[in-house]
């Protein structure tokens, strides 16, 4: 097995508390390119891994502003410029009446940007991933908790990393081929 064919090492940990402690140790050991795989989001794991706050919220903010301003522009342009028809004596640009659709399109813009922003940050869809080659990894969506350390991490070393994962309580350690 040449190093080029290796994605990284996968180790199982027993339960939420074990993975939380293990993630702390892996981070303190200086690893950067590692990840935890849990059947549900484990409380406190983001801090243990040293992850920064997600930026999805900012993307949603932009989406909301785009939706609201697009909605207001559409209503202004179509009612006052493109098709000016006076209806029950209301002004062509009746901004009060336009607020509802502006609000609704703000929500729509925000919702789509939450979805697309999350997909983009997570690089989804990614239909192939080396981890899917592992048979035991299938249990990560059921009741098993894993940590994977990638080959590309500067501190990665086939033997040392394996031993390290063992020392912090990792079991069923498996080398994952790319």
């Amino acid at each position, binding site marked *: 097995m040449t190093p080029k064919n290796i994605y990284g090492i996968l180790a199982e940990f027993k339960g939420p508390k074990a993975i939380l402690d293990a993630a702390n140790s892996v981070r303190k050991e200086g690893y950067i390119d590692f*990840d935890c*795989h849990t059947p549900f*989001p484990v*409380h406190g794991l983001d801090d243990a891994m040293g992850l920064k706050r*997600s930026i999805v919220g900012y993307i949603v903010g932009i989406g909301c502003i785009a939706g609201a301003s697009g909605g207001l522009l559409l209503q202004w342009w179509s*009612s006052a410029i493109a098709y000016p028809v006076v*209806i029950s004596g209301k002004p062509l640009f009746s901004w009060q009446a336009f607020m509802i659709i502006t609000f*609704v399109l703000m929500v729509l813009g925000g919702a789509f940007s939450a979805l697309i922003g999350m997909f983009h940050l997570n690089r989804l*869809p990614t239909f192939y991933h080396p981890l899917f080659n592992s048979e035991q990894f299938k249990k990560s969506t*059921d009741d098993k908790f894993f940590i994977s350390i990638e080959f590309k991490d500067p501190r990665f070393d086939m033997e040392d990393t394996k031993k390290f994962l063992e020392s912090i309580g990792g079991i069923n350690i498996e080398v994952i081929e790319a």
Partner: protein
Amino acid sequence: MNDLNTNMHDSRDITDAPLVEGNHTFASITEKISSITENPPPKGWWIAFLASLSLLGLLKISILYLLWEGTGIWGLNNPVGWGWAIVNFVFWVGIGHAGTLISAVLFLFRQKWRTAINRFAEAMTIFAVMCALIFPGIHVGRVWVAYYMFPIPNQMSMWPNFRSPLLWDVFAVGTYFTVSLLFWYVGLIPDFATLRDRAKTKVRKVVFGILSLGWRSSNRHWQNYEQAYLMLAGLSTPLVLSVHSIVSTDFAISLLPGWHTTIFPPYFVAGAIFSGFAMVITLAVPVRWIYGLESIITMGHLDKMAKIMLVTGSMVGYAYSMEFFIAWYSNNTYESFAFVNRAFGPYAWAYWIMISCNVIVPQLFWFKRLRNSLPVLFIASIFANIGMWFERFVIVISSLSRDYLPANWDYYTPTMWDVSLFLGSFGLFFTLFLLFLRFLPMIAISEVKGVMPEADPHHGGEH
């Protein structure tokens, strides 16, 4: 301090009933919920599915005949130009509200018990809104130009009238449907991955492989995922309150006595939540029994939903009485007449069905014994569904049939096609809902695991 924390934690454990009962583990939760979609359905499912499919056929026939013949096949007359179609529209949109309330509002309030019921309540929302959207769609008369409702550039250079509440409604309900669908799908992604990883057949592997988008339970993904979910919940919360408010402006912005009141938006929202929770109970009681999910959808869940029905039912009752008070206090002859006519006029029978089902029946839920009785819950929830349909019937029909000039008055009677379309819409709803029960995880697997005590990293530990 440490002692104090421990004590507080312990006392909470004692007072709160567990969210998941029985000796479930993470694996048994996965097995319980996934196996429903993997094994052949129970016989009861087939009976229900064939019945729903027949009603769906009835819907198709009714719509085709309507397109062929026109809206003249309905019982509409002058002045009642909005008949059952609009009653059904408001009824179905209202039912949808509980799903979003459970999935979004209770999420923001950190009500963890929502996890057992949010998935199928959201499915209920989506299917109910689909049923709702049929009615204004076929009510426009010339269905083939229904696209006039949308701001699409066209050869006549016409644009929709954005000052009209009917157009606000198109946008509000359309957005509501879209956002609910996105929210539902985002919630389903981790569970699709669970089904993918359990899949034995090629078809299931491919289908769930595509639907799960390559989800690999990564915590780096969970982090963005959780924030996106929070954002969607935050966006859905004002949306769900606005949708039925906007639906109510279809009525409130007109000048018709009985419609032209400012209480409509909050009153409609309360009624929508009431009817939605009633429908969730109607669906949850048989589903948990047939599929043996009593340990996940517990009596505690049903008890809480019954309390919400009691609160919203009483709010609706308050709105009914406040309408009367304002009608008298306004000193407006037409307004006063509209309300006296509602309670004692030709549609008094409908009004009193509405009052009994929506105001009196939910009062049963003051009693814990009745909240914990499955037959009472089921029957009371069906009464609430009936009552909420009649509420919309009373609002639409009684106001339209007696407007300002007695020379205009007429009595409205539905035809068989009104009835067949309404029954048919139940066919669409239940067909979709049964397919959902059959093929998709009806309970959010990853979320239920997340609220189990052993999911907390400090569980059983020394703090």
